[in-house]
């Protein structure tokens, strides 16, 4: 009995020990000091020393797993058998491509993200850029490749019109990202920059995952889970805004309401637009986030807005005639998506978006209405198919229904659009990256299909230097005004060729990019038939855009709290399309654009100031008295904007006071001219007000 007892206790007291030792390097041969080695499920382990050597003894036995890990590298698990015999290992770890990937595809794109290393802008840069007042596209207008078009909203990229840029939120299309167009009164974007954690602004050559944009895409990624429960209330010069966010461990709900009324503001600040009823509007948004499991995320975003305004325009043909323009807009947008890692290593995404925009217009005595609805479904999956390669495959479908009416005339259309895409990204160690993709599209309305190849390539020539190249074909269904009128239409098309060199250092960025865009198959009005002829739209228009964009940014490298960037673009573009009688430069393109953005933080005063200066050479305008079509140029345009923000506390709660003034010096910029039908009289197209003032106080309350 005593002997048995001893036997039972013995296994506890006699430990079998195995010595484990070895060296650790990266796959590039670098010794790794401070790496962690251990037996999975046990404390037994050690760290590697400066020579990359490690050694420890373990009392575990049998089949075990030796784990090797080091931050920035992929954790390695090795199966071992522990039976007392010493084991030596010569281990190699691969860099974690998500962190240390030095090469990133960047031809034709600017990424703003807190997550990635080689980015040019941070999301908060957008909020703090003077002249932007939190409007995303105004801030993006300070990057190279964009033309300053003061009289209308949108992004005009590399000789392309604003319709050639598509806005995408969380992979889903946003049909109406701006408030509805009002003649000569630029509208703001609908989305606040605070909503987003990342932005990729591509000025060309974008991925096969997106389509229907001849020039560029603005890809926005919304925040995942807001950090905590809080309420905030903002009092603005022309309205107010309230947001409440409730955060639980894996769930978040956020609700916001906005109201604006520009009447008091328009009474104080002199306006050059003759308002009848100044813009008034309200909007509400609802946001829901749910984390599911380890890697899943369900997102829902819905927004509703209603706004109205009316103004008088001056007729040039009859000085006594002032037609009244009235607009009542209702917009609803819903975006919901689910993403997760499935089957071990496939990143899966499925989403649905719904856009509904209704413009109820009164054009003097004529009523008009534009209504469009878009349903979109999209799925995609990304899989790691080899050591350094990823494959993304996906499909999407859009159902578009549009109804337009003017007085008693009505037109409507329905289009079902289907697209599929496949794209592969592969990396050659850490010095080269390739992306090859194809997109297939079919439009039921056009009864035509297209296949668009896209390829990008990035080569790291030195530590911080990269050369990037991209080529792609891009198709876009013609604007609906042409779909109503034309028969047997086809897609409009642009082929992009882009080459750039960039140097991204710790605090500086330099980029120079050259591009050539070949426009084919553009909508063009042809007069067919005898005598007066009948106008018919066909896809026989064409054009080109070529240029060079230069960008330099110094973020605190020269002066500690000063961040500045300079962007310059040279653009040469002409088109023979739509109603152009001959090939000519379109009115939204300027040959030279220069922007200087300056920001300075005053940490001692908890404040921030910024200035933005832009210069652009004159843009073409149509003058009926000039035999050369679009032969005239407006004078050069400049603007200097200021913004400042100050963080303080009001009754113990954090508050931000924000002030912004656009066109501080009061330059009278002329964006173009309108002519009477006989060409005898002309009117300048100018901004609705000489300067725009914005003041706001935002208070946020948190909960203990």
């Amino acid at each position, binding site marked *: 009995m005593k002997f048995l007892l001893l036997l039972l206790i013995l296994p506890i007291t006699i430990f079998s020990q195995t010595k484990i030792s070895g060296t650790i390097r990266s796959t590039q041969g670098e010794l790794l000091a401070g*790496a962690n080695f251990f037996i999975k499920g046990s404390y037994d382990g050690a760290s590697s020393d400066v020579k990359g050597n490690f050694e420890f003894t373990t009392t575990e036995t049998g089949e075990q797993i030796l784990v090797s890990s080091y931050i920035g590298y992929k954790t390695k698990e090795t199966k071992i058998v522990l039976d007392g015999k010493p084991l030596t290992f010569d281990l190699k770890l691969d860099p974690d491509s998500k962190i240390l990937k030095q090469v990133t595809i960047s031809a034709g794109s600017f990424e703003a993200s807190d997550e990635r290393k080689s980015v040019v802008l941070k999301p908060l840069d957008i909020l703090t850029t003077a002249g932007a007042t939190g409007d995303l596209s105004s801030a993006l207008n300070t990057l190279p490749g964009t033309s300053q078009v003061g009289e209308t909203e949108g992004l005009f990229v590399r000789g392309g019109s604003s319709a050639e840029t598509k806005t995408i939120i969380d992979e889903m299309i946003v049909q109406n990202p701006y408030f509805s167009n009002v003649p000569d009164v630029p509208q703001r974007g609908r989305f606040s920059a605070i909503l987003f954690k990342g932005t990729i602004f591509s000025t060309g050559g974008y991925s096969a995952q997106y389509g229907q944009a001849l020039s560029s895409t603005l890809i926005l990624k919304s925040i995942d889970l807001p950090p905590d429960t809080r309420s905030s209330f903002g009092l603005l010069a022309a309205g107010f805004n309230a947001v409440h966010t409730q955060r639980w461990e894996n769930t978040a709900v956020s609700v916001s309401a906005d109201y604006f009324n520009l009447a008091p503001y328009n009474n104080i600040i002199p306006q050059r637009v003759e308002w009848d009823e100044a813009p008034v509007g309200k909007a509400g948004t609802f946001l829901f986030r749910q984390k599911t499991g380890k890697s899943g995320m369900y997102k829902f975003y819905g927004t509703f807005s209603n706004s109205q305004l009316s103004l008088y325009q001056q007729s040039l043909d009859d000085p006594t005639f002032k037609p009244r323009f009235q607009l009542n807009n209702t917009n609803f947008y819903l975006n919901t998506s689910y993403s997760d890692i499935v089957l071990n290593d496939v990143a899966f995404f499925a989403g649905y978006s719904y856009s509904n925009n209704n413009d109820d217009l009164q054009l003097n005595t004529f009523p008009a209405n534009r209504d469009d609805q878009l349903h979109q479904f999209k799925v995609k999956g990304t899989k790691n198919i080899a050591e350094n390669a990823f494959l993304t495959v996906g499909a999407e479908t859009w159902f578009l229904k549009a109804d337009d009416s003017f007085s008693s005339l009505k037109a409507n259309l329905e289009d079902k659009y289907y697209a599929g895409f496949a794209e592969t990204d592969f990396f050659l160690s850490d010095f080269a990256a390739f992306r090859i993709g194809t997109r297939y599209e079919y439009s039921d309305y056009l009864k035509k299909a297209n296949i668009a190849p896209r390829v990008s390539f990035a080569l790291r020539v030195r530590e911080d230097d990269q050369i990037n190249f991209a080529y792609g074909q891009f198709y876009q269904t013609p604007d609906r005004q042409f779909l109503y009128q034309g028969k047997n239409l086809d897609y409009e098309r642009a082929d992009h060729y882009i080459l750039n060199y960039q140097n991204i250092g710790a605090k500086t960025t330099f980029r120079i990019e050259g591009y050539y865009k070949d426009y084919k198959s553009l909508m063009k009005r042809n007069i067919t038939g005898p005598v007066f002829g009948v106008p018919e739209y066909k896809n026989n228009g064409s054009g080109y855009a070529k240029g060079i964009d230069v960008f330099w940014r110094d973020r605190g490298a020269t002066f500690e709290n000063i961040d500045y960037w300079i962007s310059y673009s040279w653009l040469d573009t002409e088109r023979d399309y739509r109603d152009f009688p001959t090939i000519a430069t379109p009115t939204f393109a300027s040959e030279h654009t220069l922007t200087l953005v300056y920001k300075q933080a005053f940490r001692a005063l908890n404040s921030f100031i910024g200035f933005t200066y832009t210069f652009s050479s004159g843009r073409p305008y149509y003058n009926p008295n000039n035999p050369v079509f679009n032969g005239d140029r407006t004078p050069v345009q400049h603007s200097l904007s200021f913004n400042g923000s100050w963080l303080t506390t009001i009754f113990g709660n954090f508050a931000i006071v924000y002030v912004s003034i656009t066109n501080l010096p009061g330059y009278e910029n002329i964006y173009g001219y309108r002519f009477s039908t006989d060409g005898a009289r002309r009117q300048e197209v100018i901004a609705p007000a000489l300067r725009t003032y914005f003041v706001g106080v935002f208070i946020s309350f948190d909960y203990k």
Partner: protein
Amino acid sequence: MKKLLLILVLGMISLFSQNEKMVKAIEKNVAILDTARSIETAKLLINNFERIADVETGEWIAQYYASVANSAYSMREKDNVLKEKIIDKAEFYINRADSLNPNNSEIYLIKSVIVYARISISPMERYMTMLPLATKYMATATELDPENPRTYLQSGLILLFTPEMMGGGKAKAKPLLLTAKEKFEKFVPASSIHPNWGRPHLAELLEYVDKP
């Protein structure tokens, strides 16, 4: 009967030896924590504490120390991308600690330290959006245990390196650091492995404040 007793005894030995094992392992590393100076020691502590925390997933103290080791090292990492990843790890472990032992002053203190560390990666951009959260966690930590010396140590440290024009500087930080000293003198940890770090660092700071 004897067999039953044997099984019982063997069972109790394994129970005690497991917890004792963790306590011994943590004690060994906590002894170096306060005076860790070199990067090698800092990395060693991270590895040691993480190994313990990954096994003892039900023990808040193990998670807490894994977070402290990562937070402390994060301020030394110069590469911002790696720094962010290290802070992510610190946050991961402190969240585990928080769910195992909610409303704990020491845990909230580390949560605050983590937010300050994130701000330091990109101060100009993150300052305005993250500062409210950092101060909220710090206030919660002090409120949950007004006798915790470490909250005064950390608050003093932050105030010390805040510019004078914004209400910071040596003169303003000194009272907080002296309060920390007073609290440390009275402080007795609940066990040999409950948080008890900070005295050597405080001594250095007090010396620094007195210099002109």
